[in-house]
């Protein structure tokens, strides 16, 4: 029974004989080694279509993954398997013709022990202090990074959590990264901070609250952005915010417009003129505050400055909540119908609020051994990438290459095909990577010319499954960037 391999990819724990696949048909025993059988993924686009692939023009039903004749094909690294430790040529080195030039794409799946995720969470809610530990199932899997405008940043994964800590820490880190890369939702908690559910391309859920839209700015910033548009339409504007509430006529922006002080005094602690802290707390009310009755934040209206007929607009930082008042002869605010011209400016605040999302960038370094699968002289590949001769993609998705040494890349996981990522028990993530360059340059850098096969040969071999090209991604075989 020595030819049996026990597969631990799922709880079924199949025992698989040599040359056979497990119950799922996706893992198999090849010569005593457990291997993944997911077919090679080929991205196809129609020649006469510059954008997205339209393979099923007539019957827009479903595509079973069959290859489309006459379509332009790009072999992705998904399912190509790796060659670790990489002293042999990459699994697929594929030539094709693009714009009259012979191109070659070196297709592989990299095992990335040095990899991590940069996660941007669009929220102003407090997630945790900078440097605080981010945990998943109790294990530390990353930390809070520097906050960005309107967003909180997390640095997750990385070699220290993958292989530098306990076995459990590594396993949880690997699974967390895999889940996020595959588009799954992961619950994270920050020490002395919030619990947040993160899912690429979806709104974050912070302490159980769904974040819907980013505010346009804090109350003070909103005053600054819209002051000229309010000028002449209202005598006072209060922008309600749980961070800094803005009061237009006292604010620098109002002074600049020569607005007279209106005497509407809000609660809270004054920071600088027209900017107030601690006016409202977090809640389900106006713009994420606990304010439901806007007049409740007005402390008093001063007779020495205010006047009967004064027009008062109160609005949240998302523009979703607003109220309009006119002061009566006793200087009491009376709700009135908002003039259309003012309504237009309120609507513009809402229009400027973008949906709150989580974005997940996979970051990894294509190290020495992976590059050795491309050429016998790996540094030439690095130089070629640096010189923009070689284009790098991950599952066909464009990547950002960091300046400096090595090939350190970042890619938006939502632009990669579904199921692009895998893992090995090291633990480390497995991700597709493709290097595309002119054939002549490939030969010059010491490429494995004997291993080059044509795209038609690969397609004819029957190992490939096709998926439509995504129009938002640049076609890797086209010239220029």
């Amino acid at each position, binding site marked *: 029974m020595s030819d049996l391999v026990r597969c631990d990819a799922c*709880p079924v724990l199949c*025992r698989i004989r040599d040359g056979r696949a497990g*119950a*799922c048909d996706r893992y198999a025993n090849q010569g005593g080694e457990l291997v993944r059988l997911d077919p090679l993924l080929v991205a196809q686009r129609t020649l006469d279509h510059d954008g997205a692939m339209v393979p099923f023009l007539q019957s827009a*039903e479903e595509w079973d993954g069959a290859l489309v004749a006459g379509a332009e094909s790009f072999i992705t690294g998904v399912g190509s398997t790796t060659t670790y430790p990489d002293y042999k040529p990459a699994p697929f080195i594929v030539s094709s013709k693009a714009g009259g030039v012979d191109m070659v794409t070196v297709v592989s799946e990299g095992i990335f022990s040095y990899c991590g995720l940069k996660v941007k969470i669009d929220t102003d809610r407090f997630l945790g202090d900078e440097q605080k530990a981010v945990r998943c199932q109790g294990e530390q899997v990353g930390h809070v990074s520097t906050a960005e405008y309107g967003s909180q940043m997390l640095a997750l994964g990385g070699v220290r959590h993958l292989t530098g800590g306990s076995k459990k820490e590594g396993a949880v880190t690997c699974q967390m990264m895999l889940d996020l890369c*595959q*588009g799954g939702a992961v619950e994270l908690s920050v020490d002395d901070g919030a619990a947040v559910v993160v899912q690429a391309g979806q709104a974050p859920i912070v302490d159980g609250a769904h974040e819907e839209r980013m505010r346009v700015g804090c109350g003070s910033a909103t005053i600054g952005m819209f002051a000229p548009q309010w000028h002449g339409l209202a005598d006072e504007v209060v922008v309600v915010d749980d961070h800094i509430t803005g009061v237009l006529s006292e604010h620098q922006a109002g002074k600049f417009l020569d607005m007279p002080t209106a005497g509407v005094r809000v609660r809270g602690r004054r920071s600088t003129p027209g900017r107030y802290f601690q006016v409202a707390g977090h809640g389900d009310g106006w713009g994420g505050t606990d304010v439901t009755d806007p007049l409740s934040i007005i402390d008093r209206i001063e007779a020495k400055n205010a006047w009967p007929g004064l027009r008062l607009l109160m609005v949240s930082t998302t523009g979703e909540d607003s109220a309009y008042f006119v002061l009566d002869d006793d200087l009491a605010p009376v709700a009135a119908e908002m003039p259309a011209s003012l309504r237009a400016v309120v609507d513009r605040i809402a229009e400027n609020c973008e949906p709150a999302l989580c974005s997940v960038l996979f970051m990894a370094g294509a190290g020495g051994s992976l590059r050795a699968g491309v050429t016998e002289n790996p540094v030439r590949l690095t130089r070629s990438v640096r010189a923009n001769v070689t284009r790098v993609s991950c599952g066909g998705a464009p990547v950002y290459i960091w300046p400096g040494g090595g090939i350190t890349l970042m890619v938006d996981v939502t632009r990669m095909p*579904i*199921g692009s990522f895998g893992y090995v028990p090291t633990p480390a993530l497995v991700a597709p990577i493709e290097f595309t360059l002119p054939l002549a340059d490939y030969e010059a850098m010491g490429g494995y010319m004997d291993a080059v096969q044509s795209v038609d040969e690969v397609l004819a071999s029957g190992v490939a499954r096709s998926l439509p090209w995504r129009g938002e991604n640049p076609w890797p075989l086209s010239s220029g960037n």
Partner: protein
Amino acid sequence: MNRPEAVFGADGRLFLRHGPIELIVEMFGAEAEVARAYDQARQYADGLLEELVKELTLLRRPLGAAYPMFHGAVAKAMARAAWPHRGVHITPMAAVAGAVADGVLAAAVAGCELEKGYVNNGGDIAFHLAPGAWLEAGVVADLGHGGLSGKARLRHDMAIRGIATSGWRGRSQSLGIADAVTVLASTAAQADAAATMIANRVDIDYPGIERVPANSLDPDSDLGTLAVTVAVPELSEGAKRSALLAGVDHARGLQSQGIIEGAMLSLGDQAATVGALAHENLQDLKDGENQL
């Protein structure tokens, strides 16, 4: 160990995958209801495989005189669907794919107002139909070549909520030589078990048919040392006919007992139909139409 994966395809359908469970879920109705149904399906599928694996040893044991007791709802449904076939070798595993589809479907539609919906577990399909709704299902006669050979319109007022297909070329093992046996039944679990059993009966002694002990291929096979088909040569027309008729006989028996509603059996270029699939429900397909 991989955790369950749940992803939405570009077409909006939900894909759930965990080990051998590979589900395509599609629901039709108001957006909020559909979203809720997908959410319920996802939650139900999480942990389902672990639950089944707990009882796997017993689920792989042939049914005998005593009705087996299981804890999990899906395991119970598997036993229920396999039980009527216990006159010959059968284990609850014969209904696993269909029972999983039934379970996920029931969880998805619970409390939701949906026009229709289906859960496709590798070709074994459970579906939901509101009054007036219908589903068009493509039937693949030859698993080796994949093309569609017919389609059936399944209406709300028919006692059919499950479809399953079995054959020796498919993912699971078969004692027979049918390229495909597609069964319609009131649940996917019943259809799954019946398709397996009918496919086992589509058989004939013929030189060149190769069979090997099931456990020589898969040491954990629930078929043990039974001989399963691994190669079928070109058969004479008469041989194909005889093999198919053996299966048709069995299918008719199951239909008369109310275990299945209809079946379509195919072997090479020959096919035969029984019950609901024999009537006006089955239409010829034009080229290029898509299957469910």
